[in-house]
């Protein structure tokens, strides 16, 4: 069976000019992953790892220039999103592919009422009339748990709290019942108690509608609860991917293991020092030739001067490292 979304060798480059000097940065280098209907993929990484750029480039939202998609394919229901005519992509975006952004304050238009922003989606994509669109907008607001949705249609974004605004953002994304939702750090700007509400809402909506989610996040706790599979990115490349449980139980890449070891956790030993990853995050403009993680890797050797390919290791897992860590039975603590 073919996948709902199949990304192959996606590479994105940013070129910035400062006087005569052109700086060229590979933001994403050869990213491949796939996603099935109703499935959640957690795209995990730290700042600058390329996770946001990857998700934006799928729906043609990379500012160009300076950004440029160098190569790759992204098949969505068999059609290549990267090679598609802009008009065709516009019809898909907001319709069968929708997006939820990190900051609900900046992703809503402050000058338009909530109702106007929601009905616009239905008018454009579903060719609905004003009244019908308004009815649908109220229905969607109700679905995401906004009390008295009819009245809220006339509110402006600033009249709502951060959590409520994020609910509006989700309602807007769900207007046309998308097959694929790209959620970029959807709860990062929210307090934990509100984050718990939003994550619960996403899980519940996914169960009811069977949409697939690409969840972009830096928070390993959030992916642990949400994702079926995870893809860990470092410096623009995928270093490890696999079913969430398997990767957390036994991370094969030294970076994944380091990341898991450096998270302070509520269920760990609080008196042990955290296993911090030494060194600094990579400078994308000056990446080492071989494995990008090698300068910070405790197990790096001469072999790591070459770039490790992403190879399959066991069922549905892949790894880009010459020195796979031995499988572990005990979970990381």
């Amino acid at each position, binding site marked *: 069976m073919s996948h709902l979304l199949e990304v192959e060798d996606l590479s994105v480059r940013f070129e910035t000019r400062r006087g005569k000097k052109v700086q060229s940065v590979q933001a994403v280098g050869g990213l491949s992953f796939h996603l099935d209907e109703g499935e959640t993929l957690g795209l995990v990484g730290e700042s600058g790892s390329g996770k946001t750029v990857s998700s934006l480039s799928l729906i043609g939202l990379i500012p160009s220039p300076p950004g440029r998609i160098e190569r790759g394919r992204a098949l969505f229901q068999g059609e290549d999103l990267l090679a598609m005519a802009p008009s065709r992509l516009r019809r898909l975006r907001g319709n069968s592919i929708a997006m939820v952004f990190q900051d609900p304050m900046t992703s809503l238009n402050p000058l338009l009422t909530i109702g106007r922003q929601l009905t616009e989606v239905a008018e454009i994509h579903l060719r609905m009339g004003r009244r019908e669109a308004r009815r649908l907008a109220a229905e969607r607001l109700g679905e995401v748990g906004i009390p008295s949705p009819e009245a809220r249609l006339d509110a402006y974004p600033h009249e709502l709290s951060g959590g409520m605004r994020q609910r509006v953002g989700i309602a807007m994304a769900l207007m046309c019942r998308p097959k694929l939702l790209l959620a970029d750090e959807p709860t990062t700007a929210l307090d934990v*108690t509100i984050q718990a509400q939003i994550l619960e809402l996403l899980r519940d909506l996914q169960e009811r509608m069977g949409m697939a989610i690409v969840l972009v996040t830096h928070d390993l*706790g*959030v992916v*642990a*609860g949400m994702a079926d599979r995870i893809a860990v990115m470092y410096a623009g490349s995928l270093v490890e991917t696999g079913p969430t449980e398997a990767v*957390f139980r036994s991370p094969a890449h030294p970076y994944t293991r380091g990341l898991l070891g450096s998270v*302070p*956790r509520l269920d760990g030993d*609080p008196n042990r020092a955290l296993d*911090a990853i030494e060194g600094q995050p990579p400078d994308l403009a000056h990446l080492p030739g071989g494995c990008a993680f090698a300068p910070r890797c405790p197990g790096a050797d001469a072999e790591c001067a070459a770039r490790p390919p992403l190879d399959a290791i066991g069922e549905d897992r892949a790894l880009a490292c010459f020195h796979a860590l031995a499988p572990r039975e005990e979970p990381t603590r």
Partner: protein
Amino acid sequence: MSEPFLQVRSLTKHFPIGKRGLFGRPGKVLRAVDGVSFDLERGTTLGLVGESGCGKSTTARVLVGLHEATSGSVKIEGHELVGLGRSAWRPWRRRLQMIFQDPYASLDPRQSVLSILEEPLRIHRLGKPRDRRLRVLSLLDAVGLDPRHAQRYPHEFSGGQRQRIGIARALALEPDLIVCDEPVSALDVSIQAQILNLLKELQGRFGLSYLFIAHDLSVVRHIADRVAVMYLGRIVETADRDTIFSSPRHPYTRSLLSAVPLPDPVAERARRRIVLTGDVPSPLDPPSGCTFHPRCPERDRVEGRRCESEAPALLGGEHECACHLTES
């Protein structure tokens, strides 16, 4: 019992909002900190946790003298700090330092690291220029930065390195107490762990006391000896670290703990969450009685709508809790 190193009693900070002109109507009052009391023992860490707008950062700013308290008392080794004038504050500034959340915004981009770290020494007239320089180099070394980079400017460092510079600046005057306001929340996890480990190491080395403010409970659990949980300007629960994480008593603390996602897919999926309804109310117009009552999952267990009419006091000795349910 001997006197605690830092003693805060009934501290309040109110901001008048919206008053216009001499004869304008008095506007509303934002009760950012509304009666906060806690102790901090020398050489230990108190974690002050709560969600946005609960008043934790304002508490920090009042403590180090960046805001003037509206009322209440802050004592260090028995000396009252509230109400001190500018010059009387000055010797205390050496002993109370602060580390800020945003390492990008809290360093002057036009000063070299050397000059940033020398400035407090210069202002407090400590040492000769040569000694100051040596002190700066040893500070850089203490926070894990290369002393050869002293001439560089903040933009030449990464976020984690900048936070190290902020820590070095706080250490420059050999303070007793450092107020850390969300010092790791702007950093990536791999770097966050480095900074937490560094803060712990420095505490052991210099006998520092920390007031550690954070919204992330897992971070606080790693660094704090005691924890105080704030909600809408008040402390709702305090206890030593192990107690508060293993047997939280206040319904707010419980739901806060259950909302923290665990980086463990198996445990995370098996977990039962207490998901709070609604948002944090505005400190401009806090609810009556216990300010948590509109969101509290337990309020029906208290008889006679007391939660709506009567604010619970913070009671209970070593493990204090402000809730009508735990009073008896």
